[in-house]
């Protein structure tokens, strides 16, 4: 007979089984209806919007805030990215901004009193040619100059850290010449970041309205007056649009033009395996990035879909291409199955930097252009946008990312630091 050991079904679990209601406290309230007026309305209940609400309440004392989310919180890019956090960018503006985000992330589980499974792994960007190794060296020197841990490493070092990696790529792809190694590179549980910020904002009195769609924004004499939603009209003179992939629909409501064009970015997770991959592995040439989650699944993504599309559909072409390149790097994965495949919307900018801060419309603030790099910027975007909303002036970290840079021909080129060539 099978020995199951002593039965230790807890009394608490038993109570859950018999209860008609969920016994744990909810993470945040579900407000009955919209108020007539808020000091700040945030469109988009993703990580960025919720973080902005959190910092408005905690750092700047503004608590009459509504976060409007058309679906459920974290349902957009926040829950669809591959959860990588790093600061090894290329420009001074980019490195300083993303490093400030990493600094906040490192303490965020404590700040939000919620385990975000923040896990520093070491981040390798593989170079498959001497030319790409030169770009890695450039990034490493720019990073070191700004105090970010980053260096180029040779094949021996890579092999020691990632024994399973086939440096020859099976002879089917150019072999690995070296890598850009960024030890603080980390992954975290992305949904929990949204939940943690939501709970923190809610505790201070901010309201989170899910299933509430913004239908129009009221402008008078070049200034924001209010927001129309499918649940009614709200008066406000400050609106933050933090909707990333849906920004091109929102910007039309206020008559703004921007370079944003939306492309889907797809990703997959495999069935779980025992822990074998500690590092985060990125290959720009093979358009692949892979890490292993704390549940043991491999999380992998690749390049953007090649043409504009505002849809989260998945394609077989993508899964085939990605699987092929994963096998070039880790041939033994041939028997591993893909469990899920999905897509997120990426609002791409021409210089691969975000669009943040004030706009020509008074009271309309934007946090967009998050393309493929938004999750890692969640804490610092929330903080700097809260600062900007509270003071009316752009925080110094985001001044270079203002929408006006495109009319001043003053771009912040970060394409060379994108994880893969898009």
């Amino acid at each position, binding site marked *: 007979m099978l020995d199951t050991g002593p039965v230790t079904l807890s009394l608490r679990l038993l109570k859950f089984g018999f209860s008609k209601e969920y016994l744990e406290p909810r993470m945040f309230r579900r407000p009955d209806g919209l108020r007539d007026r808020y000091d700040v309305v945030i469109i988009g209940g993703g990580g960025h919007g919720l973080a902005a609400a959190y910092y408005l309440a905690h750092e700047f004392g503004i608590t009459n805030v509504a976060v409007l989310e058309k679906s459920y919180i974290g349902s957009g890019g926040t829950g669809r990215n591959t959860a990588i956090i790093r600061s090894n960018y290329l420009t001074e503006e980019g490195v300083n901004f993303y490093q400030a985000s990493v600094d906040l992330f490192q303490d965020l589980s404590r700040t939000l009193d919620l385990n975000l499974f923040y896990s520093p792994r070491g981040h390798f960007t593989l170079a498959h040619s001497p030319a790409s190794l030169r770009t890695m060296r450039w990034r490493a020197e720019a990073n070191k100059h700004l105090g970010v841990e980053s260096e180029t490493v040779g094949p021996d070092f890579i092999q020691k850290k990632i024994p399973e990696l086939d440096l020859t790529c099976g002879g089917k792809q150019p072999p690995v010449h070296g890598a850009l190694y960024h030890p603080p590179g980390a992954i975290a549980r992305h949904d929990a970041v949204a939940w943690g910020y939501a709970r923190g904002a809610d505790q201070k009195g901010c309201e989170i309205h899910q299933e509430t769609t913004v239908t129009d924004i009221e402008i008078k004499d070049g200034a924001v007056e209010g927001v129309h939603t499918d649940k009614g009209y709200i008066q406000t003179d400050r609106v933050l649009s933090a909707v990333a992939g849906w920004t091109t629909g929102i910007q039309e409501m206020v008559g703004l*033009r921007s370079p944003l*064009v939306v492309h889907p970015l797809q990703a997959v997770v495999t069935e779980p395996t025992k822990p074998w991959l500690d590092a985060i592995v990125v290959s720009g040439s093979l358009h692949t990035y892979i890490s292993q989650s704390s549940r043991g699944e491999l999380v992998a993504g690749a390049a953007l879909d090649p*043409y*504009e599309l505002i*849809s989260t559909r998945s394609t077989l072409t993508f899964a085939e291409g990605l699987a092929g390149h994963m096998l070039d790097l880790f041939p033994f994965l041939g028997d591993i199955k893909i469990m899920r495949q999905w897509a997120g919307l990426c609002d791409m900018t021409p210089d691969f930097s975000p669009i943040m801060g004030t706009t020509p419309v008074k009271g309309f603030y934007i946090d967009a252009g998050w393309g493929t790099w938004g999750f890692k910027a969640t804490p610092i975007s929330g903080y700097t946008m809260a600062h900007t909303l509270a003071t009316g002036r752009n925080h110094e970290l985001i001044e270079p990312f203002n929408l006006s840079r495109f009319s001043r021909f003053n771009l912040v080129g970060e394409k060379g630091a994108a994880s893969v060539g898009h």
Partner: protein
Amino acid sequence: MKILTCPINGPRPIQEFHYGGAVRDMPDPAACTDEEWADYVFNRDGAPGVKAEWWYHSASSVWFIAERDVVNDEILRTYLWGKSESP
């Protein structure tokens, strides 16, 4: 969209094509203001809706225009530059 109809070669798998961006008019660089030029260089119409776009059939080097809904990926019609009727 998995099949795209080239005005010369007929229906072909999407893998044979490359996307060339929206059809746009270039302002006269000698006559326009810096602002108009910056708008042309950087800004795009990224809103949801039907757009006229350049597509390229790489197997036969044919550039043509497709009218496509960028929300549901449906192709409404394709035609060669200068000819707005479907073949």
